[in-house]
């Protein structure tokens, strides 16, 4: 069953776990490609995987006028109870609504995962083999996609994606050309004459294309609801469609924000 809405790991411990996961995957990828240590790479990737599982948004519940957000997979192990909601909005519907305004430090992490492979490439070049280039570029593309997502308003992001697809096609062709040319220069033969190198190259390119397009496309469809509690903390909930977003905003406003308290 597809969930109508789920919490996104933009704040608190799930945000830390999600950032740690992205960083571990990037470092693991660099370690694996560089061949510096045969043991460190799987360990770092496994840590990233575990951190990623903890940050998965699992449940959004409303119980006794409280909003409960659960994170973790397969079971929710981190829960946030939000009681005093003072602001709720669908950020996609606001003409100047940008996620970066509420979750600034994500920009730093997305920049870091984008920069680490670039630094490695600047220091080591295409060592040990140019066929690893698509794999090394994976965090760079993800970092760019995620950065654009939180920095742009929903409307600008949708417009940008249409133009970005053309740019991506050119960049990927360029990556293919660089890999092929460097391989020929290093080994004096065509990349396609070596089946294992070809397989590695195509796997990398496929991963690069699929993950970038998936992130860009999915993020352009989902709506994000932001909830602010009276202590000034922000929580984000993603919804599968605009209609589910409307339903959730109304539900939280009605069930969590409306209370009948005695007064003096």
């Amino acid at each position: 069953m597809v969930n109508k809405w789920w919490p996104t790991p933009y704040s608190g411990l799930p945000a830390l776990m999600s950032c740690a996961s992205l960083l571990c995957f990037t470092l693991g990828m660099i370690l694996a490609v560089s061949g510096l240590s045969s043991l460190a790479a799987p360990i770092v990737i496994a840590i990233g995987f575990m951190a990623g599982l903890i940050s998965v948004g699992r449940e959004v519940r409303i119980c006794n006028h409280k909003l409960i957000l659960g994170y973790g997979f397969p079971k929710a192990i981190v829960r946030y109870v939000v009681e005093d909601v003072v602001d709720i909005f669908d950020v996609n519907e606001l003409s100047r609504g940008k996620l970066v305004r509420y979750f600034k430090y994500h920009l730093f992490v997305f920049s870091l995962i984008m920069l680490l492979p670039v630094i490695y490439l600047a220091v080591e070049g295409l060592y040990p083999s140019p066929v690893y280039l698509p794999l090394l570029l994976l965090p760079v593309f993800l970092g760019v996609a995620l950065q654009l997502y939180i920095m742009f308003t929903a409307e600008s992001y949708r417009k940008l994606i249409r133009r970005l697809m053309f740019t991506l096609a050119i960049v990927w062709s360029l990556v293919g050309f660089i890999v092929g040319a460097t391989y020929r220069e290093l080994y004096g033969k065509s990349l396609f004459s070596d089946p294992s190198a070809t397989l590695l190259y195509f796997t990398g390119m496929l991963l690069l294309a699929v993950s970038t397009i998936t992130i860009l496309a999915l993020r352009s469809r989902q709506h994000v609801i932001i909830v602010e509690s009276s202590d000034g903390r922000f929580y984000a909930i993603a919804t599968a469609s605009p209609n589910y977003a409307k339903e959730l905003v109304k539900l939280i406003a009605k069930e969590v924000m409306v209370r009948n308290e005695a007064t003096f």
Partner: protein
Amino acid sequence: MKLPSRMEEVLLLIYGKGLREVDVARRLNVSRQAINRALRGATGRLSQIFLELAEILNADIIRVNVRKGYAIFRGRQLNTKIYAFYIPRKGIRVLFKNGVNCRDEELRSLCIDIIRAAKEWGMIEEEEDDADTTLRNILRIIEA
């Protein structure tokens, strides 16, 4: 559609002026718990007002902000944005997007009310010379 005056006062002192609950309690000569209850009651009542307004306007809710006393809706039939402001001591005032020219005689008082409310709620500190510009700034603030 108005809040009781005492609730309104607490809400504006805490969220508009940024006073602490304990200072408001001292100023109004009541306990801190009473202020806390009044604040929760006021935010709850204000949310209820905005929800009822959404029903009356046949609109979907985009934003409800009880800290600054406003809400944004989207009308289901005309698909246009509607802004609702809680004006202290007067109640709710509604503004349709692109529907206000503050130079218009009939709409001038609405503009003045909204600008005054934005100042009381602490959304803006100073107003521009031109009411239209001030109103546009307020809309920019609540759309971010």
